[in-house]
């Protein structure tokens, strides 16, 4: 594909994704924050469903060598970067995706968050240019590199190559695990619902008793 066709396909995908997220109010930040802070799972469930579909789809195609998996070494910076990101998204009230979606809805705060995401990236470019860490893609080896705190590269494809078991088998195992998490959330929601109903009934009983006492 030529770069222009790639850009057009990307724009089309982004537009549909943006429209669907705007209409569903889906937010990645809420998927984590609401589960942690408020024990509500509306977005978490949607995220898990997408992850299950994608795991089967990606590992299925990877089993036959199709698709374009991400190729870069990971290490301490992967954990540390997303740790900072996790704090940032809760403070900003939106992740990179929802900042674009909210900006499209006219949210000036989201636009402000985006501008400072860009500023944060530029600041990192200065820090990287002084530290040269984490390693640039050109110097990534795919192997463990202890001095650079890198663990190398591994995914469903490398598992398939190493063990001779199709990638989809690993994918199905991960999907089953995600499915268990999903089931756990449903159980928790049912328990929350039952608890809520119990409280409501007790409240109504008390109200009725108080009304009866007033009448008497």
């Amino acid at each position, binding site marked *: 594909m030529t770069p222009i066709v790639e850009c057009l396909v990307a*724009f089309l995908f982004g537009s549909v994704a943006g429209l669907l997220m*705007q209409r569903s109010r889906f937010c990645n930040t809420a998927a984590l924050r609401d589960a942690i802070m408020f024990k509500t799972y509306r977005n978490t469930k949607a995220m898990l469903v997408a992850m299950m579909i994608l795991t089967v789809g990606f590992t299925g195609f990877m089993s036959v060598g199709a698709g374009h998996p991400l190729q870069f070494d990971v290490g301490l910076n992967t954990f540390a970067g997303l740790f900072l990101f996790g704090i*940032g998204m809760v403070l900003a009230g939106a992740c990179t995706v929802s900042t674009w979606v909210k900006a499209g809805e006219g949210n000036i705060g989201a636009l402000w968050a985006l501008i400072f995401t860009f500023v*944060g990236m530029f600041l990192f470019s200065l820090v990287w240019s002084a530290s040269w860490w984490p390693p640039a893609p050109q110097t990534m080896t795919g192997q463990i590199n202890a001095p650079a705190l890198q*663990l190398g590269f591994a995914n469903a494809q490398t598992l398939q190559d190493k063990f001779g078991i199709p990638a989809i088998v690993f994918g199905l195992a991960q999907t089953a695990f995600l499915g268990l998490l999903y089931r756990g959330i449903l159980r928790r929601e049912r328990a929350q619902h039952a608890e809520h109903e119990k409280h409501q009934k007790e409240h109504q009983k008390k109200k009725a008793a108080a009304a009866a006492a007033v009448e008497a």
Partner: protein
Amino acid sequence: MEFFRKTLDPIIALAAIAVLDIFMFLLMGAWTVGGGETMMTGLVAQAVLGDELGRIPFWSIVFPPHADYWKIYISLGMLFGAFVGAVASKEFYLRVPRHLSEWVLITIGGLLMGFGIRLAYICNVSTFFGLMPEMNLGGYLAMSGIVAGAWVGSLIYKKLLERDV
């Protein structure tokens, strides 16, 4: 149209996005956000600084700015799609944060997100909808990082809420 009147179930929305993302994975690569933003940062920095930008090695080695980088257009597409959705459902209006504390939190949050994305080479979308489904080792590292970060962020947020109350 019904679609623009009722809120869509996020499970249906995300399932549809996931199916489209599988096509993206086959054509170019999984849904990602962060690379496009970095390229936009580079393009803006190039427009402002000109040749001076060459003095910062990151922009010549890791991310030489190119306007025809497809990831930029995923983000612009999301902005456009959300704008169309908001206008069609009469939900578009300017919302401006009222308190100074909100502006401060958003600023710090934005800076942390931008810095974190580049430090990790990925963002949360690539974590959930790219690396994890590819069973990349980085997906598990990133997932642990973002859950720990969201937990710490929530603690900070709770403290701030309590102080305001």
